[in-house]
C-alpha cells in the first residue's frame, strides 16, 4: 500500500507536490529567474516564427485574393530565364486585339505597361509616385478594384490618347487630402492630366516590395507611350479575365497556344511570354513561406535547445545544492516518484512562466519587426498553444535528467552530501 494507491490520494499528492515545488521555486528566486529567462528567449523566437509564418500565409492569401481566381496575367518575355528588368517586349497590340477577338471564355483583355518614379504635382504640392501604369478601358474591373468615385477610361480615351487619369488612394490622400480629386488637373512630369476616377483603398503591398499598390497613377496606355516616349508597338503585360474560373486550366492552355500561334513559335521552342495565375502565385508564395519556416524554424530550434540546456544545468545545480533536502524527504518517507515529480513540476512551472514571458517578448519583437517592415506578422491563438506546448516539452525533456538524478540519490548519501 503506497502513499498514492487511490486516485484521490494521487490527486492530493500531486497538489501537495505542486505546493512544495512553488515554495522551493520562490525560495530560490534568482535561479528561478534565470531559468525563466533562458526558456523565455527560446519561446520568444518560436513566437516570432509562428506569427511570421501566419503573417506570410495571410499575405499570400491577400495577394491571391487580390489577383483573383478568374484572371491570368501575361508577362512579355520569359520570367524564368530573365531578370525583371531584362524581360523582352514580346506582347504587341496586335496580340491584345487577337486575344479579345478569339480567346474563348475571356471577357476582358487589358494590356499594360508601367513607368517608374514619376513626379506628380498639384498646386505647389509635389510628390514622387513609384509607378505610372498605362492601361486600356476596364483597368478597375480587370483588377477587381472598384472605383471610389468617378469613372474608368472609355475606349475613346484610349484611342485618342486623352490626358485623363485614375488616381490611387494614397496619392489622392497626399495631394488632395479630404477634397475630391475628380475633375482636377494634376501634372505628371510636365503633362497635365485630368483625374476622372479615384481607385478605392486596397492596402496590399506588392509581392515583397515595400511600396503600396495604392501609390499609383493610371493613364490610358496610348497617352503613356506617346507622352512619355515609350515603345508604341509593344507593352509589358496583359491582364485577362475569364468567365467560369473553374475552367482556368483550359483557359490558360488556350491562351498559351493562341499566343504561341501569334508569335509563330515552332513546337519545341520555349515560350517568349509567361502566364501567371492565382495558382502559380500560390505555389510561389508557399515556396517562400516554406523557406521562411525553415530559416526561422532552425533559429527557434537552436534557441529552444540553448534555453533547454540552461534549464537542465541550473536544475542539476539545484538538485546538487539541495541534496540534503532530498535525502531528508526520502528519510521521512517520500517515495522516489514524489521526488521525481517535484523536480519535474518545478521545471515545468518555470518553463511555463518562461513561455508567458517569451510570448510577450516575442510579440513585442514581432511588432517591432512588422513596424520596421522586416516581417509581416499575424498574432493568433496558435502562438499561445505552440508556446505552451513547447514550454511544457522543454520542462519535461530538459528537467527529466536532473529529476531522475534527484530521485535516484540514495537517501543516506544525499543526507551526508551536506557535510
Amino acid at each position, binding site marked *: *500500500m*503506497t*502513499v498514492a494507491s487511490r486516485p484521490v*490520494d494521487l490527486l*492530493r*499528492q500531486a497538489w*501537495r507536490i505542486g505546493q*512544495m515545488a512553488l*515554495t*522551493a521555486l*520562490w*525560495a*530560490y528566486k534568482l535561479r528561478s529567474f534565470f531559468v525563466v529567462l533562458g526558456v523565455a528567449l527560446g519561446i520568444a523566437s518560436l513566437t516570432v516564427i509562428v506569427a511570421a509564418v501566419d503573417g506570410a500565409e495571410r499575405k499570400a492569401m491577400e495577394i491571391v485574393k487580390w489577383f483573383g481566381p478568374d484572371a491570368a496575367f501575361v508577362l512579355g518575355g520569359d520570367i524564368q530565364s530573365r531578370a525583371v528588368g531584362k524581360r523582352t517586349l514580346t506582347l504587341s497590340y496586335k496580340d491584345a486585339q487577337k486575344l479579345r477577338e478569339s480567346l474563348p471564355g475571356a471577357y476582358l483583355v487589358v494590356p499594360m505597361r508601367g513607368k517608374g518614379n514619376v513626379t506628380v504635382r498639384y498646386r505647389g504640392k509635389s510628390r514622387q509616385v513609384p509607378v505610372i501604369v498605362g492601361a486600356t478601358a476596364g483597368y478597375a474591373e480587370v483588377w477587381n478594384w472598384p472605383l471610389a468615385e468617378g469613372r474608368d477610361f472609355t475606349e475613346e480615351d484610349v484611342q485618342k490618347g486623352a490626358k485623363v487619369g485614375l488616381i490611387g488612394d494614397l496619392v489622392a490622400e497626399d495631394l488632395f487630402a479630404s477634397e475630391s480629386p475628380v475633375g482636377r488637373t494634376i501634372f505628371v512630369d510636365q503633362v497635365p492630366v485630368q483625374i476622372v476616377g479615384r481607385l478605392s483603398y486596397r492596402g496590399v503591398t506588392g509581392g515583397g516590395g515595400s511600396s503600396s499598390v495604392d501609390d499609383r497613377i493610371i493613364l490610358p496606355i496610348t497617352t503613356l507611350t506617346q507622352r512619355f516616349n515609350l515603345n508604341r508597338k509593344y507593352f509589358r503585360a496583359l491582364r485577362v479575365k475569364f468567365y467560369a474560373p473553374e475552367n482556368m486550366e483550359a483557359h490558360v492552355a488556350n491562351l498559351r497556344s493562341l499566343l504561341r500561334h501569334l508569335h509563330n513559335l515552332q513546337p519545341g521552342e520555349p515560350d517568349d511570354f509567361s502566364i501567371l495565375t492565382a495558382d502559380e502565385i500560390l505555389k510561389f508564395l508557399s515556396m517562400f513561406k516554406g523557406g521562411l519556416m525553415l530559416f526561422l524554424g532552425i533559429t527557434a530550434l537552436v534557441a529552444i535547445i540553448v534555453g533547454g540546456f540552461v534549464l537542465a544545468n541550473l536544475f542539476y545545480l539545484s538538485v546538487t545544492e539541495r541534496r*540534503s*533536502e532530498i*535525502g*531528508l*524527504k*526520502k*528519510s*521521512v*518517507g*517520500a*517515495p*522516489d*516518484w*514524489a521526488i521525481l515529480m517535484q523536480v519535474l513540476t518545478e521545471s515545468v512551472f518555470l518553463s511555463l512562466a518562461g513561455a508567458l514571458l517569451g510570448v510577450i517578448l516575442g510579440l513585442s519583437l514581432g511588432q517591432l519587426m512588422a513596424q520596421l517592415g522586416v516581417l509581416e506578422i499575424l498574432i493568433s491563438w496558435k502562438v499561445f498553444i505552440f508556446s505552451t506546448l513547447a514550454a511544457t516539452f522543454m520542462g519535461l525533456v530538459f528537467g527529466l535528467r536532473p529529476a531522475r538524478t534527484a530521485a535516484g540519490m*540514495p*537517501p*543516506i548519501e544525499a*543526507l551526508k552530501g*551536506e*557535510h
Partner: protein
Amino acid sequence: MVDQRLAELEGITKTYKQADREIEVLKGISLSIDSGEFIALQGPSGSGKSTLMHILGLLDRPSKGRYLLRQQDVSALSDNALSAIRNRTVGFIFQTFYLIPYVSAVENVMLPGLYSRTAARELRHRAEQILDQVGLGDRMHFRPNQLSGGQQQRVAMARALVNDPRLLLADEPTGQLDSQTSGEIMRLITQIHEQGLTVVLVTHDDEIAGYARRRIRLSDGCISPS
C-alpha cells in the same frame, strides 16, 4: 502490548564496494528490539553503528540476513513500499537537524505528513500540537535560522513524531549542542520514551548513552558482549 517484538534482525551483514575491494561494515548482526525499549547503540566511529541504524530505519538494505519489522519481512520489499513503511513507522533525528531552511518550523514539522494520507487541516493541527509539546508553541512560524540549535533539534523531534511512528531513531542527536542543551534534548527524548515510543539512540558518548535502558556496543561490525 500486542506486538511485543518490534524488530528482529538475523545475521545482518553489509558490505560496501570501495575501489576494487569490498569492505564489510556489518558482520552478521542478530538483534531483537521489543516495543517500548530505549536502546543506545554505542561504538567508535567506523564500528558500523550508523549503518545498523540506517538498516533499522529502512534507509539502507542489508547485503545478507533477514529483517522483520512488526512481524513483516522487509528485506524483499520494493523501494516504494519501504518509503511507505518508513513514513508511517519510523521517525529520525539527526545530528545536523536537516530542517528545510526556507519554510517555517510548523511547515518543517508537517513534512512527513505531506507524504501520508493525513488531511491538511488535521496535519497542521497535529504539527502545532506537537510543537507545543516540545516547548516551541511560541515559535511555530519562525524559520530555522531564527532558532537556536536546541530549538532546531526540537523542531526536528516534532517532525519525527508527527506521523505517530513506532520507532524513533536518533543519530547523535546532541552532537552539535552544548552540554546544557544536550541535557534538555535527552530529557525530552526520555519523556517521549516514557509515553511508550521505542527509541534507538546512536551515540559514542557514554554520558548520553546513560539515558538509555539497554546498551548495545558495536565494534568492528559485530555486537560485543557486554
